[in-house]
């Protein structure tokens, strides 16, 4: 079984000569389906670059990026664009729903861009919205939705269809901690249904929803967490440190 995402010795250099910036240096990363990985690191550590490279929005300077086992270097630009629409879902900080489209039209936009008929796209879109418990608001416009419903619609758009890889850059934006937790619960639920998820965040509480936390510093992967024991270990220890 191939991994949903694999980065092999990925480096990214911006600029050249004295202004050269090494955003990523020899990064290896494997993300399996069903796994939620958080990327943490200080500003300028390369977190967002890693995400844009994983989403094929940017090319690497050296190294390989494989999405579902396919090396992006061997894929033509139009095919990369198709891959982005079909296999990869994105959740942005401010959700980026288009105001002129209804919730379900926002969700199905990547499918329709891919040439799927409006009717089939709507059915698939409603399915994704159903999973996120927001299908009853399908025909409302973003400004008629609450913040929580907009989040759900944005995540539905990211998982609609057969997407196997979900990429999120600071997906809780300016939400308070409880609503931010709501977003992480939804992302976790999506990955538990078999999607691979990568979340970039600088907040430890949000990262702690991930199965694995990978730490970046100055473009290098410097560390990662090991799989935590079950929650019962805390309760047995009396619950207090």
């Amino acid at each position, binding site marked *: 079984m191939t991994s949903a995402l694999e980065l092999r010795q990925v480096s990214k250099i911006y600029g050249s000569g004295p202004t050269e910036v090494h955003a990523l240096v020899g990064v290896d990363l494997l993300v399996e389906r069903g796994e939620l990985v958080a990327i943490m690191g200080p500003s300028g550590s390369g977190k967002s670059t890693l995400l844009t490279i994983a989403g094929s929005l940017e090319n690497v300077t050296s190294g390989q990026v494989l999405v579902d086992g396919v090396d992006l270097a061997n894929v033509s630009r139009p095919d990369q664009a198709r891959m982005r629409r079909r296999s990869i879902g994105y959740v942005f900080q401010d959700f980026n729903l288009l105001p002129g489209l209804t919730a379900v039209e926002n969700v199905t936009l990547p499918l329709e861009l891919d040439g799927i008929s409006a009717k089939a796209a709507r059915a698939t879109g409603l399915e994704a919205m159903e999973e996120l418990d927001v299908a009853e608001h399908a025909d409302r416009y973003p400004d008629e939705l609450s913040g929580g419903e907009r989040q759900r619609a944005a995540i539905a758009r990211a998982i609609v269809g057969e997407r196997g890889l979900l990429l999120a850059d600071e997906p809780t934006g300016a939400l308070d901690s409880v609503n931010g937790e709501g977003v992480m619960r939804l992302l976790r639920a999506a990955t538990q249904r078999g999607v691979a998820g990568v979340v970039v965040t600088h907040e430890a509480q949000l990262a702690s929803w991930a199965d694995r936390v990978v730490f970046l510093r100055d473009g290098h992967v*410097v560390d990662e967490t090991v799989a935590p024991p079950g929650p019962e270990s805390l309760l047995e220890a009396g*619950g207090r440190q």
Partner: protein
Amino acid sequence: MSVPHALLALLSEGPKYGLRLQNEFESRTGEVWPLNVGQVYTTLQRLERDGLVETDDGEGERSQKRYRITRTGDRELAEWLRTPPALVPPPRDELVIKVLVALQVPETDIHEILQVHRRNVIEVMQRYTRVKAAAKEDDLALALVADAELFRLEAIVRWLDAAEVRLKQLPQVAPVAAPAAPLEPTRKMEVSQ
């Protein structure tokens, strides 16, 4: 956790038997703080002695007694709820000391030390988050207890992050000249409450 006040709070809802108090205490603290029945009765005895609770009758087996809160008990509970807990940090925070010491030990990569602790704290946070994720959505007590731990731990991560930024802003951490500086912080920081 103040067991006496927690019991007073449970009794403020109405008279109860000891065993029921034990069950309710555990379920309402998200079962994070186990309490044995012996502790419950010892505490109730003390509360009764201090006039904060009373029983239906003074005689009989302890399990037969039903306890109720007195007016003095109500007042004590109301006052306790509004009394700020001690917020002054422990005099020597172990992690702070370790980081200060690490700055002085030759050939020690301070970033690596900070990262070891950051990872460790986040791994503990992952365990609390799993408790929350596995809990029923309406288990308010457990969510509140887990949140309290998570915010406390997150503050440690933020302190480590801030330490990292402060170190980066220095041109270079100066090696410590002999004689070695004291290993423990000697400056006292007074925090008024």
